């Protein structure tokens, strides 16, 4: 049974997420190697055994709206270099924000979608998208998010975000998207 967070804590974690998502990237330590991670949030003073306010199914309408807002602020795309699947330094704060969001909402589940730009073949890009999704999953697991809450799927180059045959469009399309599953 998970502990309950007050609206105050919800609000403050939302603020943290916002801050992380908005402030300039600062050096972020490499995540530790994947370990078995406890998903229990830090106990707080207020506890009730019956309702989990971090579970969207148990949230009030207002809290659910907060949850959605926090998700939309935290779940930003990360991008990749051509034919690469390693996390770029510039994207590490985004992954930190996603990890913070997922720790704040202990029942949130996220599907990580790996995508590629239009260059290259259908099949190889599907395999590359798989790599990109799993790389982010590993990184978030390293930041303490339970792997079971992070699904992965590849769409290769089949679902470009923008049309356009230039490096700017290609970079936008070489991405992981983080989709809330709740």
């Amino acid at each position, binding site marked *: 049974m998970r502990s309950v967070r007050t609206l105050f804590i919800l609000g403050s974690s939302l603020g943290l997420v916002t801050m992380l998502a908005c402030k300039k990237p600062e050096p972020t330590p490499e995540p530790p190697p994947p370990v078995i991670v406890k998903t229990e949030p830090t106990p707080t003073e207020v506890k009730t055994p019956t309702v989990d306010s971090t579970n969207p199914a148990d949230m009030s309408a207002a809290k659910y709206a907060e949850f959605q807002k926090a998700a939309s602020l935290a779940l930003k795309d990360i991008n990749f270099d051509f034919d690469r699947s390693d996390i770029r330094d510039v994207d590490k704060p985004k992954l930190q924000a996603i990890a913070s969001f997922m720790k704040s909402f202990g029942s949130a589940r996220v599907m990580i979608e790996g995508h590629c730009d239009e260059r290259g073949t*259908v*099949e190889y890009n599907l*395999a590359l998208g798989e790599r990109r999704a799993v790389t982010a999953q590993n990184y978030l697991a390293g930041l303490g998010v339970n792997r079971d809450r992070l699904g992965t799927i590849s769409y290769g180059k089949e679902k470009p975000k923008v049309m356009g045959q230039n490096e700017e469009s290609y970079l936008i399309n070489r991405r992981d998207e983080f989709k809330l599953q709740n």
Partner: protein
Amino acid sequence: MRRTLLGKFGKCFLAGGLSFLGVWAQAQSKPSGQSAPPKAGSQTEVTVDARQGKLGVGMPDPVLAGLDAANVAPNFTDVLRRDLEDAGPFALLKDKLPTSVAASTVKPWLDAGAEWVLALKVTKNGEAVTVALQVLDVKATAQGDGKQLRYAFSKNYTGNASLLRRIAHTLADDLVDRLTGDRGIANTRIVFVRQMAPGIKELFQVDRDGANPIELTRYGSLTLSPTVAPDGRLAYVTYKGGSPEIWGQKRPGSTHERLYPNAAAGTQGSCYAPVWSPDGKRLAFSQSDRRGNSDIVVLDVQSGRVRKLTDGGFINTSPSWNPAGTQIAFTSDREGGPQIYLMEEDGSNVRRLTVEGSYNESPAWSPNGAMIAYVSRFEGKFDLFIFKLGEGKAYQITTGVASSESPAWSPDERRLVFSSNRGGSMQIWTTDLSGNSVKRLSEFSYCQSAKWTRSR
């Protein structure tokens, strides 16, 4: 023509026309045992001339009985003319030609360069239609008394009037068989993926000439990578259940069902790039693991058992069987970028095939086993190449005008079908092996991953 390449890959590239002629020399020099037995009165001589060894063919408009010319032209005459032009061994004559086949027109046909003239009569009886074909042997007739017409080949075709188009294809294939002993491809289909809306792709098929489009799936989802078994059964990847799975047919004409993951499969991973084995019993495909790598596995479709062939902690995808079903070509990034490798069907004896370039993908083993077509990135563009196994050399087929992807062989091994954005959006095109004869298959936009089959 391929100047930019000659500098870098010098020895590997020949002028395009040579390989084209090479293919025909091969066709003409086939052992007679494999050719159609010569029939009485057939003395056609094949002359090599300015038409690159093609046989000059005249085809006046058919004589019609009980049919409207406005109906016959688009459904028969135009279809047959295009089939003959596309077939390869024929040069269809066009200018200043006689409009009939008679003793008086033998000399004009001869002067026009015709070796064969197709005399066609199309007759309608109720719902049935009969096409009577007589192939005038111009030289044999001219060498006689000039009055006695000599025919190389005669045949009647009867069917429902709605089948005129099919009759034209069959007739064209008969002419190819008659001349070369090879099976023609007029009566073939091309299966491909077509985007219906962003993120929604379905399988389609069209006739080889782009006619008769048929929607094969309607999942409202992402459906990719079709493969066609020798008996016409489909298999493909679809995301209709959320994650990519292998779906297809266990029996000819049966409903489509999930083939993998199945109940016997303990672990589950995303599945991509299925391809039927030449015997139609197995599917090779790529399955991802939890580390983001992918391996080539082979599924025995009836038993549901799978066998993993690669285990290297790398990307392994895009399998393609040799025609004997004893070897598999595939792509792997085990040495850095994607390169094409070969292995035995049990996964042993892995060896690298491609050595030039940093991105080689989508191997497609040719129907006769001597060539592997693939995609290579060269000077920032993706182009089709052919690796000739006997020579150990690669030849470039398409040249840098746009992206060219997903090559698949025509059943007669004379052309490749592929997807390219050379016309703007991705469409399906075909090319001969010289790269000089590139044709768009249909007007459909946002298409990819074509396969060419006799069996549908």
